[in-house]
């Protein structure tokens, strides 16, 4: 039942990706720095887009599990599998994966991870879904599903501060917090993006991203 639910959820998220917005790969020769922080999980990316549809990344993650703190760090390859550029919207599907070191409750090991992300956006709405699975010799398979919808209260021009209101739903059954529903605000100006929110369970979230 659980497995079928996850497969169905993944298919729904992928099918929603008719149009989109993109983080794992940016414009050619762009360097991106991304940091997602929540009380139960952090995710840091340093990416270099060497082609319009491909990037290499150094990634580190922190996850709070019942056994203790779980840290993973690995090189990653990001691939923009498909992009739709429409007059008023854009959509993307990304696939990525990597393998490297892991540490759980003072035990060292290794981990490998794959993920798929699909997003779509116009200047006034945004939708994104992703699924990641990570294998390690230290613990059970880690799954992470995330879904977002957002609306912009106004359509910002290129040199104006853009603001968004979003709701994020996360599902990660092996963490201390199995799910989180987080209303959040996103602001960006030029090449810097900030997000902040608090989940319905009271967990804070603070994200930051910029590219140059």
């Amino acid at each position, binding site marked *: 039942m659980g497995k079928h639910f996850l497969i169905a959820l993944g298919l729904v998220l992928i099918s929603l990706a008719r149009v989109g*917005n*993109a983080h794992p790969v*940016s*414009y*050619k*020769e*762009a360097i991106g720095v991304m940091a997602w922080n929540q009380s139960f999980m952090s995710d840091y990316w340093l990416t270099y887009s060497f082609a*319009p549809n491909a990037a290499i990344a150094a990634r580190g993650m922190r996850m709070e599990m019942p056994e203790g703190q779980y840290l993973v760090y690995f090189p990653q390859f990001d691939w923009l599998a498909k*992009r*739709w*550029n*429409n*007059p*008023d*919207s*854009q959509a993307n599907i990304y696939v990525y994966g990597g393998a490297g070191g892991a540490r759980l409750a003072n035990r060292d090991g290794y981990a490998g991870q794959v993920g798929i992300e699909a997003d779509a*956006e*116009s*200047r006034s709405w945004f939708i994104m879904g992703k699924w990641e699975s990570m294998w390690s010799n230290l613990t059970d398979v880690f799954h992470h599903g995330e879904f977002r919808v957002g609306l912009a209260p106004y*359509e*910002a*021009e*290129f*040199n*104006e501060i*853009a603001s968004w209101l979003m709701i994020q739903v996360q599902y990660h059954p092996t963490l201390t917090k199995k799910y989180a529903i987080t209303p959040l605000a996103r602001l*960006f*100006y*030029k*090449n810097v*993006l900030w997000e902040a929110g608090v989940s319905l369970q009271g967990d804070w979230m603070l994200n930051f991203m910029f*590219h140059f």
Partner: protein
Amino acid sequence: MKTTGKLLILGMMLSTLAMASGTEVKIGVNGMVCGFCAQGITKKFKAENAVESVDVKLSEKKVTLILREKQDLPDDRIKQILTDSGFNVQKIERQGI
């Protein structure tokens, strides 16, 4: 004779002004819905010697370039820059300014 001289001077002045001005290139771009994502466009075009200024208008789905006098940026190069930035060119229009 006097009138001819004045016309010649006027003509020279006008031609000098025409040479001093550049070209405006208006580019229709598909997929340009987010300023954060479109940053690469300004960065890439500003790196081109021929480009004096870049103006991105998300609402019009348009990028406007002002080229330096006596300089040109071929359509193929414009398309390449926008493709590398992750977007598609819809049309390119040029006019002298």
